[in-house]
């Protein structure tokens, strides 16, 4: 598999909503490349006919009874939110004008 490049790190960071300084990126590039090479070991195995395991214990269509139950009150949500006003969680504007 191809070596990890600085632009890969930048692309993944963007997807993960993280940012790194140039210095951090350099250190990260080294570590990240090593970790990616380390996990590439699984590529050695022939898994052509092997089904994937997504859960250790398979359970399907687990549904609860369709019954109303109380959720958190407006007040409780307000006490958790970093900014809350008149029943709304306040966030910065989506776009600068």
């Amino acid at each position, binding site marked *: 598999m191809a070596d990890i490049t600085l632009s890969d790190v930048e692309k993944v960071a963007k997807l993960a909503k993280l940012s790194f300084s140039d210095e951090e990126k350099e250190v990260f590039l080294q570590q*990240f490349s090593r970790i990616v090479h380390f*996990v590439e070991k*699984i590529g050695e*195995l022939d898994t052509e006919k*092997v089904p*994937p395991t997504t859960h250790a214990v398979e359970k399907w269509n687990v549904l609860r009874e369709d019954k109303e139950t109380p959720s958190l009150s407006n007040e409780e*949500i307000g006490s958790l*939110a970093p900014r809350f006003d008149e029943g709304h969680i306040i966030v910065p504007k989506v776009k600068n004008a």
Partner: protein
Amino acid sequence: MDIRDLSVRELSEALAKKEVSSEEITKAYLEAIEKDESSPEPIHAYVSVLADEALAMAKEADKKWARGEATKLTGIPIAIKDNINVKGYETTCSSRILKGYKASYDATVVERLVRQHGMVVLGKTNMDEFAMGSSTETSAYGITRNPFDRKRVPGGSSGGSAAAVGGKLAPVALGSDTGGSIRQPAAFCGCVGLKPTYGTVSRYGLVAFASSLDQIGPLAKTVEDAAWVYEAMAGHDPKDSTSLEHTPAVKLEGNLKGVKIGVPKEFIIEGLDPRVKENLDEMIRKLEAAGARVAEISLPHSEYAVPTYYVVATAEASSNLERYDGVKYGYRAQASTLSEMYVKTRTEGFGPEVKRRIMLGTYVLSAGYYDAYYLKALKVRTLIKEDFQKAFEKVDVILGPTTPTPPFGIGEKVSDPIAMYLSDIYTISANLAGIPALSLPSGWTKEGLPLGMQLMGPALGEQKLLDVAYGIEHLR
């Protein structure tokens, strides 16, 4: 008699005979915690101590004993890992991003152990940030030290819980185990740690790291104590869609005669410390003398467990940790637009190891790499699971070291992520396969460091697993 030397069973018997009150037990622990925190090289097992609340719970428990409404766990103090919700108190996961977040509901395990049985919460224990680590050094709230050597790590990620039990700062504790996070610190701190079968203990109220691998379990002084707490918190929970319809009932007799024990040849690796190898050989001799039938077995895909784990666990983590965006709770960075707020909150709120894992998880799930990494890892997970199914056709339990080395030094592995990941080499496969596994104390090195042995059993095989462990515990 020092109260803090007593097991949960002994405390329970003393409470029943009115020889001691829960208030006295709780006070003894709270004083010990305070003394430790003000010492020059503290263990620092806790990120928050619930002193006043614990005393109030203890008084309530004493009333229950007086009224004859107590269960065997009523009034016994417990330490809870800081990724498990206790309503009204902080759950930080030892991360900056959750600083100040107060849980708005109880985890099911807290509902059962604390609200129903009346166990007393001493506090929330330190951990690797979001349970990502093997040394409790990635905590945003300071390191935890090994109670038996303050220059060494307690293991992780449940390092605070293990150090609390090993350091006599709690009689029993809860941890969570995604790749060894209960068993590895249990081995490093001289305690018993059980990772139950996936689905037997509800994950409701446990902050998710890798949902298909995470499981809550006890850390205790004895196998019996671990069994008591496990029994009290296990059982179906409609609030966890992966919870199984299974109510365990554990009976301990310690029967080793005729028990078939397999030792995987793949566990004898180059990095295995000779002191640990010697300890394993000694254990095998003792088991054979007690009438157990020990045989070499093979788990052929063992060497793929760690790389498989780091694909599966980081993929799930990158998705689970998307919720920390500064909107609804926890830390929020100042920013002029919403998208800038997301990035700044996460960049300032998460520590380096968490970022590394989010990055790897995002990478393996991203377009063009999904099949080669994530799907591939899920297939290898099947092979690892099948290895165990084949092994358990021949043996009752599998025995091996919990960790390749005794506790390592503080700072020794922080700059080398892969070396750190490899300290979980023996524990990770049980999570991938979903099977129960436990670590129990198996002796000491000449330097006075604790050693631990791991036992693994087939899915829902806790009865046999705990009984063999109980037998081994009573060999000494």
